[in-house]
């Protein structure tokens, strides 16, 4: 019994350390969205790009850019009052894969405005880029900055 659960814990740690689930979700979404004729041949270049991005710090194409983030904010703010509630904000971050379910975010009582939302999303994405193992996470982070089209 002990051995089983420790291997399970090992496996879960492995998944988290390399963020495998997020990567697989991204690949599946890409496949379903672009619907290439040959899924494997489509996936291999994406993975190659990721590999070189990690090693050399070259930019990696993200799924969402600033205009997407703004569009997402507008969807959340259906009554157009200019800010979203804290709960909506937390759900949105979870959907984007930028925060885990039990992370505690501070709620400053006011709503989250569009600028604050964009700022937080960008900051968290960069944090995550920094955490993933790369030969040179500094340059990767700055490359990612370039790509989050300002």
């Amino acid at each position: 019994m002990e051995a089983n659960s420790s291997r399970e814990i090992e496996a879960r740690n492995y998944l988290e350390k390399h963020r495998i689930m997020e990567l697989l979700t991204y690949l599946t979404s890409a496949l379903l969205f672009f619907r290439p004729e040959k899924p494997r041949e489509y996936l291999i270049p994406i993975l190659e790009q990721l590999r070189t991005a990690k090693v050399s710090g070259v930019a990696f194409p993200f799924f969402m850019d600033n205009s997407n983030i703004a569009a997402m904010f507008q969807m959340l703010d259906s009554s157009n009052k200019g800010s979203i509630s804290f709960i909506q904000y937390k759900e949105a971050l979870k959907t984007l894969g930028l925060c885990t379910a039990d992370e505690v975010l501070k709620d400053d009582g006011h709503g989250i405005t569009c600028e604050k939302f964009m700022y937080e999303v960008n900051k968290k994405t960069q944090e995550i880029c920094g955490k993933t193992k790369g030969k040179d996470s500094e340059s990767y982070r700055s490359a990612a900055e370039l790509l989050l089209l300002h």
Partner: protein
Amino acid sequence: MDATTAPHRIPPEMPQYGEANHIFELMQNLLEQLLIQQPKDPIPFMIKHLQRDSDYVPKIVILGPPASGKTTIAMWLGKHLNSNLLSVESLIAKEYSSLAADARTHYQKFQTLPDVLLVRLLQERLREEDCIRRGWILDGIPETREQALLIQTLGVSPRHVIVLSAPDTVLIERNLGKRIDPQTGEIYHTTFDWPPESEIQDRLIAPAGISEGETARRLLEYHRNMVRILPSYPKIVKVITADQPCVDVFYQALTYVQTVHRSNAPFTPRVLLCGPVGSGKSLQAALLAQKYGLVNVCCGQLLKEAVADKSKYGEMIRPFFEKETAVPSYIIMKVLGQRLDQQDCVERGWVLHGFPRDRDQACLMDSMGYKPNRVFFLNVPFDSIIERLTLRRTDPVTGERSHLMYKPPPTMEIQARLLQSPKDSEEQIRLRMELFYRNSAELQEFYRQAITLNGDQDPYTVFEYIESGVINPLPKKVPGLRAKEYPPGEQS
């Protein structure tokens, strides 16, 4: 409620694409391999895995008591599927391996191998390129529960496990007649499988250990071990009785190995039922709709509803109804398309019957993007159809429908006033049936993966066959298989 929490409208192309290309299974296999091997660099590992594309290579384990014909079946399967055959002997005989050399010395001294050594040999062999590329068939491994568990901890898991079984008396008798050709290693039998060429006959020798006592002892040990190995492979075991001709065993094994196990992939059934009039399509569709919550789309019904609603299409259809000619395909397609695009059909799946009737209609439907993922052809002989349809009656007062043979009316009074629909006369039925059979060959060609069923049984039996066809994944044909030639290498 804001847009992100409202139910999403997923375009139907996405689940269709996912099903057709088995995306779920692809990702599941990828994740499995990542978790088992836990490579330091996951991305190059994933690239290599995708390039190899070996998700569906054979991974078979064949177990069975001595004299059941394991090795013969394993060899035939290996040749047919173009895969590698691994047994204890072949592992020990391997060259260029220090492990194998150790194993040989151990085997010569003690006549057995320790489990750990065997499993390490196996691991070494399975890591070689040809096993990864073409799959493997294990003949008689694992022999004990300890071996089975060790193999599992390595992350080696077969997809199909075949267990041959036969009564002990049969096996003991059979083993007495076993003969081996020392040159090719093929196994022959004095009664069942005697080689025709006299030169092979002359050189056959009886192997050691086939006396009754010896076989009985080995059988005892086998039974003791097998009971504890089987629970390790809960859902993938198939027991085939070895007490039948070898060729039958081989065919059953081959069919099993080509089936794909059910996975957790999301699946919305889009079922198409085809068959001549009176084959039971509407009944089966109603049963399917009731049990699985699919939407029952009867083409004839749709058209009649359109006319009754006096909708735009209804006005186009009405003249054809009045003249009693067939409605042109493009109008039917428009009405059908409208129905199939509605949210409930997209979400819950549908059962379609009554359309398409010939190849052109099928092409039209396909080009509009409505592709069924299960197609069934119900075969019913002409006499049964006549029986089913000519005895249909309707009660003009209550509107209830009955059948003189299967659901007779309750009282004589009611029976006296029953009427028969003019469409149910024998000539009409014959005409409609011939129309169907003229087009059915083309339709079967168009829907290549269709399942043909015998519709001449009671409805619930037919429903069970349809259910299993819908729920189980379609069998995956192994590339390069020559279906008509079996067993490989033998002239019939």
